[in-house]
């Protein structure tokens, strides 16, 4: 069975990154969901971002 077909058999559990309203709507549907308090990585510092990417 492919992973997508497996997904169709599972209970949906969502990680929401972005609009909080999407998270709220999932909660209203009794879906297990977690909201990420996302901020731009390295607070937008491009130099730091490229340093980090070198270490991946």
């Amino acid at each position, binding site marked *: 069975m492919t992973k997508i077909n497996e997904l169709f058999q599972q209970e949906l559990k969502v990680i929401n990154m972005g609009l909080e309203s999407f998270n709220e709507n999932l909660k209203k549907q009794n879906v297990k969901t977690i909201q990420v308090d996302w901020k731009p*990585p*390295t607070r937008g*510092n491009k130099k730091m971002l490229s*340093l*980090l990417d*070198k*270490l*991946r």
Partner: protein
Amino acid sequence: MVQERIEAANKKVMEIILNGQPTLLDIGVAEEVIPGMAKKTILHAGPPIKWGKMSGPLRGAVIGALIYEGLAVDEKEAIKLAASGEISYDPCHHHNTVGPMAGVVSASMPVWILQNKKYGNYSYCTLNEGLGKVLRYGAYSDEVIKRLKWMENLLAPLLKQALKLHGPIDLKTMITQALQMGDEGHNRNRAGTSLLIRELAPYIIQTKFSEKEKIEVLKFINSNDHFFLNLTMPAAKCTMDAAKNIEFSTIVTVMARNGTEFGIRVSGLGDRWFTGPAGIVDGLLFPGYSAEDANPDIGDSVIAETVGIGGFAMAAAPAIVQFVGGSAKDAVNFTLNMYEITAAENSIYKIPALDFRGTPTGIDIRKVVETGILPSINTGIAHKDSGIGQIGAGLVKPPMNCFEDALQAFVEDLEAKNLV
């Protein structure tokens, strides 16, 4: 693959940190037991700093130490000597030592002697003088000197004897218990002090000192909630020292401030300090004081956060968060935030309020830079003028540039080795 190297190194570092066994062995005299200590050497908190750059509390503490050592008779002479070039200033950290606030250690001062039983390395710290006008806040009045002498001549020898009778004290266990009793090991030490005095009291009684002297000692410890701080700090120090110099590790082994600069050291970056301006503490001031009176962040006590307690265990000590107008839930959130920037959950230091989850331990510079989340530090606020003392308490963060500079150095190192 570079990421794998880093992960493997960090794993090793975390293993060392979590397996550390900080144990209180003895009390000794600084000059006799601290490596590299000498009559005209003054150790201080934080990264390296010259006399000319020292802030009020540190200057005051240096003056006080010189008078205490008999190297100067008064303030005037002490200042002259301090500036003369004859005195060697060095971070406590360079000598396996840590000191709270100004953190000044001089040759004759008694120090706790700890050993990390698992890895064999030692650490040292002075005994806590108490609250109010004390040397570590830069006070150097007669009263201060007198108290230091009393500690040298009575407190230390008596406790040394008591310790000998008792045997070594497992500090890891004591700190674990304190964390479950409302302490966080940096700004809240009441439980730890209580546990310590309880442990030592029967043996203090058995020492060969007079009843009056034993009473003085017991009262002294009892009057100072932060007596235990001077043990949590070296316990953290000997734990972290064992994890130094693991190549490719991005875990922070030291955080420290000298009242002017904040400095960090990273395991994979050897002995290099990465510094930035020490911050102003955000907190509550005692009545009569205002923000202009505060000294920038100072002290080696942030070694607590470095090992995963202090501000990182705030969920264990919710009272602290009120200093910044927070609720108990906020205290929990401060700790939860720290999991974002640490490598592991502590296997021993657990927090009841978080269902006994281990404290966030092992700050990873990559995660700090990536998330923008800086370590949360609980600390006292010193008056910027020497000799006045503590004027409040609150939360402070290190400057981001320490972590960014460390990350840059780390990558440059790897580039030089052709590994990225």
